[in-house]
């Protein structure tokens, strides 16, 4: 245990100071920061369109000035003056609002090349004015008008049936579930690929440079194997803690930015502490662990440092496969998608999305988790055994030949014991 910690500490310290790990941790933050910054800049730099409202009735002009917050409104008595202003590019649009017998037949002229003017907003304000005009004409008081405008009530809810029990969930939770599932899928891909590659490279480099032999004369292959995994997983934990801390510190300032507020406005944070949230986290942890073990296995198969990229390839391929299936779920719940959601590796990306889209129940998710846990235990046991043989096989003939040599050594070792 003590020597395993020494190895884990060495792996951790070596990588935590490396430029590549620091870049790995900071690059998403920088990317997100730059995206939010650009979005904010674009939004704030977009000036409002200016619209000239031509009407003989001051109340109408005032109504527009008050009801069009996304536009600058200039009031005109004369159509000609407004049009001249538009020709001089001082206005982006001219809205003439004549009233005849209490009816509005407005006329909107848009300047080609001018800023975008929302006709929907204008239409809504016009309808409101027209409504009031008609109400006045029909001698309706404000209560009567309100009663007339009161919409019929329609309450909607989505009911989830799980093992004969029905439970309600609201739309906001649904969206949040979906958002988290998509985020988990993307995060899973990024983290498993990044940390998987790191483990594969770490082991492959040590094996390729023959440092491995010196280490294995001091500790058992199993101790070294788990020490490496522990070191890399500690890096992952630090990475996640860093992000959480960053979110905690940046939360308040971030929520002041319009674009972030809009993005997170529809998010139900209760999902994070719900069963679904827990399941998503379990899948995330399982995926990281399973991919890490796979990475250790492929890393131990290389013969020299030039083959390190070959060690990383299987991880990227399986990772992308899971991602593609997870995307496919959003198009519908096909039989293939159902099956793969129970398989190790890809299931961890697919099942959370199926759960979020209500294609799978919580029970289905736990079954998939159980399969993944059993697989992880068996796979780790096998990898630890194979690792001992792999790290001493230097087959220049490539991966497949290395795997064959590994099996022959494992067989010879089994017979010797």
């Amino acid at each position, binding site marked *: 245990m003590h020597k395993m910690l020494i190895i884990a500490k060495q792996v951790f310290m070596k990588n935590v100071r490396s430029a590549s790990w620091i870049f790995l941790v900071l690059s998403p933050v920088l990317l997100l920061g730059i995206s939010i910054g650009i979005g904010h800049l674009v939004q704030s730099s977009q000036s409002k369109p200016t619209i000239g409202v031509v009407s003989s009735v001051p109340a109408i002009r005032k109504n527009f000035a008050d009801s069009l917050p996304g536009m600058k409104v200039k009031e005109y008595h004369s159509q000609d003056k407004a049009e001249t202003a538009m020709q001089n590019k001082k206005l982006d649009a001219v809205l003439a609002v004549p009233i005849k017998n209490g009816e509005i037949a407005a006329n909107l002229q848009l300047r080609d090349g001018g800023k975008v003017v929302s006709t929907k907003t204008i239409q809504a304000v016009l309808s409101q004015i027209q409504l009031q005009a008609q109400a006045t004409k029909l001698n309706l008081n404000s209560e009567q008008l309100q009663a007339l405008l009161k919409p019929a009530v329609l309450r909607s809810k989505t009911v989830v049936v799980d093992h004969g029990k029905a439970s309600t969930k609201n739309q906001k939770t649904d969206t949040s579930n979906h958002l988290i599932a998509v985020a988990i899928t993307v995060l899973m891909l990024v983290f498993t690929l990044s940390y998987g590659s790191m483990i594969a490279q770490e082991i492959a480099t040590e094996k390729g440079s*023959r440092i491995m032999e010196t280490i294995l004369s001091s500790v058992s292959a199993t101790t070294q194997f788990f020490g490496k995994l522990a070191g890399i997983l500690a890096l992952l934990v630090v990475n996640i803690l860093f992000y959480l801390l960053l979110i905690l510190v940046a939360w308040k300032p971030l929520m002041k930015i319009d674009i972030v507020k809009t993005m997170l406005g529809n998010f139900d944070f209760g999902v994070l502490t719900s069963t679904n949230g827990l399941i998503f986290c379990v899948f995330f942890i399982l995926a990281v662990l399973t991919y890490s073990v796979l990475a250790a296995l492929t890393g131990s198969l290389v013969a020299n440092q030039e083959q390190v990229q070959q060690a990383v390839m299987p991880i990227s391929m399986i990772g992308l496969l899971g991602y593609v299936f997870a995307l496919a779920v959003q198009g519908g719940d096909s039989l293939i998608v159902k099956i793969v959601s129970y398989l190790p590796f890809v299931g961890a990306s697919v099942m959370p999305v199926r759960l979020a889209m209500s294609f799978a129940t919580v029970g289905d998710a736990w079954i998939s988790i159980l399969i993944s846990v059993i697989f992880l235990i068996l796979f780790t046991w096998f990898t630890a055994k194979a690792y001992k043989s792999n790290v001493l096989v230097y087959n220049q003939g490539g991966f497949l030949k290395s795997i064959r040599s590994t099996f022959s050594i494992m067989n010879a070792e089994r017979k*010797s014991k």
Partner: protein
Amino acid sequence: MLEIRGLTKTFGSMVALDDESFTIQPGEIMGLIGQNGAGKTTTFRMILNFITPDHGDILWDGHPLTSEDYDILGYLPEERGLYPKMRINDQIAYFAQLRGMKVRDVNAQLDQWFKRFNVKGKKTDKLKDLSKGNQQKIQLITTLIHMPKLIILDEPFSGLDPVNASLLQDGINMMRDSGACIIYSSHDMSNVEALSDKLIMLKNGKTVLNGTVDEIRNSYGRIKLFIESNLTRDELTSFDGVIDVKHEGNRFELMLKSPEVGQEIFVAATKNGYIPEFSQQAPTLDEIFRMKVGEADA
């Protein structure tokens, strides 16, 4: 004491090692020689518990050598490798910690080891900034700093210049004096002859020589003859029992079937009195190695 008894290992149909046995007492150096693929590295890997023997025992002080004994081991692999971007002191401390040594003890002794092997460079330098020779010295320090009781050196002299080879020899002798059991492999017979108390030669997994250097050389008898006389090449070749004749000027170098053949030649060479040279010697280790390699398998 390291005791190897009847060690056998096969990989499929290939016999990598066949019934190998030897012992190394504390303070003894054993040289393991043989061509590539003879079974030297397989022997080391079994002692190191990298692979399990099909048969045989590896005993350390009478008990089976297991992973519990890792801390008494010092191993220098044939192909050297350290972390190029890591600082030297961190690197040595890491490997020493894996052998159960404390970092403060490593730091306290590091200067002494740098001096002993004449390392050119600072302790805080990165390994990649050192010359190849100095990198090899660092690797040797990582092997020895914890003062192991059992030292395994796989081709330690390969790639070393004569000065560094001599420093390495001094290092090995120092460890021998401290009571360590040392086993190493080498292709350079002059090193082996100078350094080894005992010798094992492997050929296709079989032990073909086993004993002290003198025992092995003497077991062949004085079958090598240097002679300067009036005898011609043809006359020398005509003796029954002369296997090979080489000459350089008037001086001949003969390989004899048995030492007794020398007496016959001596009589013939000295029948007219004085001759400048007649020297009958045991073959060198290098010659024995070549003879053994050339022999057909039994």
